[in-house]
């Protein structure tokens, strides 16, 4: 089977602190008049991401004021299935007319266990982490603060991985009409592989994907010798008769239609012994294993389900279109981190700090072991 990295489904419950040092320190610069005036029946929270030149609009469903405790909690619906809670920490003035915002936190939560909800939440978290400055704006209560979120690059990277899986599930749902419920315990490597395969079948129809080997049963005769020899000599396993391909994804059978594939860097495993067995020429079935040197094959699924021309709402499409920019921002951060390891060093210092250590014969001894005693026992110290 293909080897994939298992991706655990991220939790969207942790509170993201904006300017954590400011929570008990300097003001974020916002002072709200109390009681909150002009709050209409449907106020909005606007979250603006200047780095990406975009913003999100979220309908506020509740403002909970615990002013004496220094907390204002604002709950919004970001999208179907995604709730957002903005928690403002601050101080009420002595005369009780103003609330100074000292810090803020955002908490996202899924109210619907669907790929689309997960996708929106993952995109939001990635945006928060990669945007640098984020502007939070609620015109109705006079809130207008700009700050940054403290999310590690590793966390952001994991969000983008989850986002990719979410998007692929959305594509499969949209093309097949199925509705997936997200698992609570992440995906197995095999599930990630099936999701990837179905996604490419739908979006590409002809694509390169993992294939470790093909097992063929062929009678022991001269014709089989010719076929097997041709495969090994040409390195090409021609297309086999089509078979109906179905992958099981989150408990649903995803029918992908007839499938064929070819291996373009094929070789026959144990070629000489296979030839010897085929040369018996008594017609008995011989198992022939054909492998790909690159562990892949070109798949053709011409009748796989298709996406409609405009599969997403404008809001979702806008989030989908952010992918390349999110990737670029993340990679730029990592590249800067790598470059920073040599920053401000002289050429001599760089040469020294990048010099490889010379390893002697004991370099790979396991710490604390006695080489002589291991050799006596025939042990392997490497």
């Amino acid at each position, binding site marked *: 089977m293909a080897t994939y*990295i298992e991706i655990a489904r991220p939790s969207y419950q942790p509170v993201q602190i904006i300017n954590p040092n400011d929570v008990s320190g300097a003001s974020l610069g916002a002072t709200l008049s109390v009681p909150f005036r002009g709050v209409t029946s449907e106020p909005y929270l606007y979250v603006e991401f200047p780095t990406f030149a975009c913003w999100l609009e979220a309908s506020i469903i509740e403002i909970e004021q615990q002013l004496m405790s220094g907390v204002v909690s604002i709950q919004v619906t970001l999208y179907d299935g995604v709730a957002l809670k903005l928690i403002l920490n601050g101080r009420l003035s002595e005369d009780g007319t103003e609330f100074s915002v000292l810090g803020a936190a955002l908490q996202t939560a899924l109210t619907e266990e669907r790929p689309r909800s997960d996708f929106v939440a993952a995109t939001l978290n990635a945006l928060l982490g990669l945007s640098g400055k984020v502007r939070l704006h609620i015109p109705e209560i006079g809130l207008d603060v700009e700050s940054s979120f403290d999310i590690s690059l590793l966390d952001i990277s994991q969000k983008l991985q989850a986002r990719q899986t979410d998007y692929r599930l959305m594509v499969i749902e949209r093309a097949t009409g199925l509705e997936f419920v997200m698992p609570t315990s992440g995906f197995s490597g095999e599930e990630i592989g099936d999701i990837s395969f179905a996604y490419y079948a739908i979006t590409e129809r002809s694509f390169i994907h993992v294939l470790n080997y093909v097992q063929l049963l062929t009678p022991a005769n001269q014709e089989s010798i010719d076929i097997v020899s041709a495969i090994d000599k040409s390195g090409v396993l021609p297309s086999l008769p089509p078979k109906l391909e179905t992958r099981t994804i989150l408990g649903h059978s995803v029918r992908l239609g007839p499938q064929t594939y070819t291996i373009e860097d094929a070789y026959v495993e144990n070629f000489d012994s296979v030839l010897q067995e085929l040369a018996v020429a008594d017609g008995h079935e011989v198992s022939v294993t054909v492998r790909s040197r690159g562990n892949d094959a070109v798949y053709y699924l011409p009748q796989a389900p298709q996406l409609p021309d405009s599969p997403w709402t404008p809001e979702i499409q806008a989030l989908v279109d952010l992918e390349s920019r999110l990737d670029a921002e993340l990679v730029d951060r990592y590249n800067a981190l*790598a470059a920073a390891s040599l920053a401000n060093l002289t050429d001599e210092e760089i040469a020294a700090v990048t010099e490889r250590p010379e390893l002697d014969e004991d370099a790979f001894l396991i710490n604390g072991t006695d080489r002589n005693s291991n050799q006596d026992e025939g042990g392997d110290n490497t």
Partner: protein
Amino acid sequence: MPIEPPPPGTSLVVDNDLFQDWRFSQPYILAEIRDYQSRLKMLPALTSMTVFEALGGLRMWKSRAPFLMNARSWPAMPLNN
């Protein structure tokens, strides 16, 4: 580029040569890192040997010029010692 295009979906690691080129911001490795992230939504891993060798350079420098360590602030490192 010293490596051929990998099969799709294959996780890769960065060896010490590539890691050094990455630290020197060589354009080819920056492009490869960008492409890898675009496809797999992750960065290639550093092998333990790569980390060992990178840390070895730091230790050697520290042992040869300890005064430098005190004379200036240490640059940010993407490695945990």
